[in-house]
């Protein structure tokens, strides 16, 4: 079964600082990769996704992520964070043609990001 590791459970940054949240997965085959965001009191939203092609993926609100296959990583980045980026961020992995179940969709434990004004 695949697993997803998010290295930083809590991150505190000041506004305008650069952000990088780490995500590593364990599965050796082809994967689909996602970052979700959950703002305080809101539901889970898709931030960006990678299926194939250009390993540098751009998402909403200025976020981007880079898929590095050799490192099994899909780190999330933003050059300059804003107070409104305070949220919980989840990395997730699915496997193509998966029949579903626990191996079909795996999440990291999340990173709680706090941006100080």
């Amino acid at each position: 079964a695949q697993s997803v590791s998010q290295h930083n459970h809590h991150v505190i940054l000041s506004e305008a600082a650069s952000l990088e949240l780490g995500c590593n997965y364990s599965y050796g085959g082809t994967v689909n990769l996602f970052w979700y965001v959950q703002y305080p009191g809101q539901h889970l939203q898709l931030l960006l996704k990678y299926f194939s092609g250009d390993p540098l993926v751009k998402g909403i609100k200025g976020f981007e992520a880079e898929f590095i296959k050799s490192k099994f990583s899909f780190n999330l980045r933003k050059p300059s964070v804003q107070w409104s980026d305070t949220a919980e961020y989840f990395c997730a992995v699915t496997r193509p043609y998966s029949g579903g179940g626990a191996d079909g969709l795996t999440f990291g434990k999340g990173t709680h990001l706090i941006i100080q004004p």
Partner: protein
Amino acid sequence: SQTIHQWPATLVQPVGSPLSLECTVEGTSNPNLYWYRQAAGRGLQLLFYSVGIGQISSEVPQNLSASRPQDRQFILSSKKLLLSDSGFYLCAWSVPFSLYTEAFFGQGTRLTVV
């Protein structure tokens, strides 16, 4: 287009009372269905998943159960709630056996057991 409905949005229940959370998906057939729980500081924990009607797999032994009485309906239940059942419950679906498998989430249910 596909949509997912989850209700209720919030729920406050006393300890020992029963629970029923419902999730329905529209616009797709034979989806994979999931129930997750998000407890404070513990990330997203997969509780149950289903690959078809009547087919339920449990990831974590606990006080909860799930059922899939219809293709696009997924129900999370409990006969007697515990304080530890409090949390944010999310339903999700995905397309099985797809090259580009993506999960789609409901709005979630905030459950407080008092």
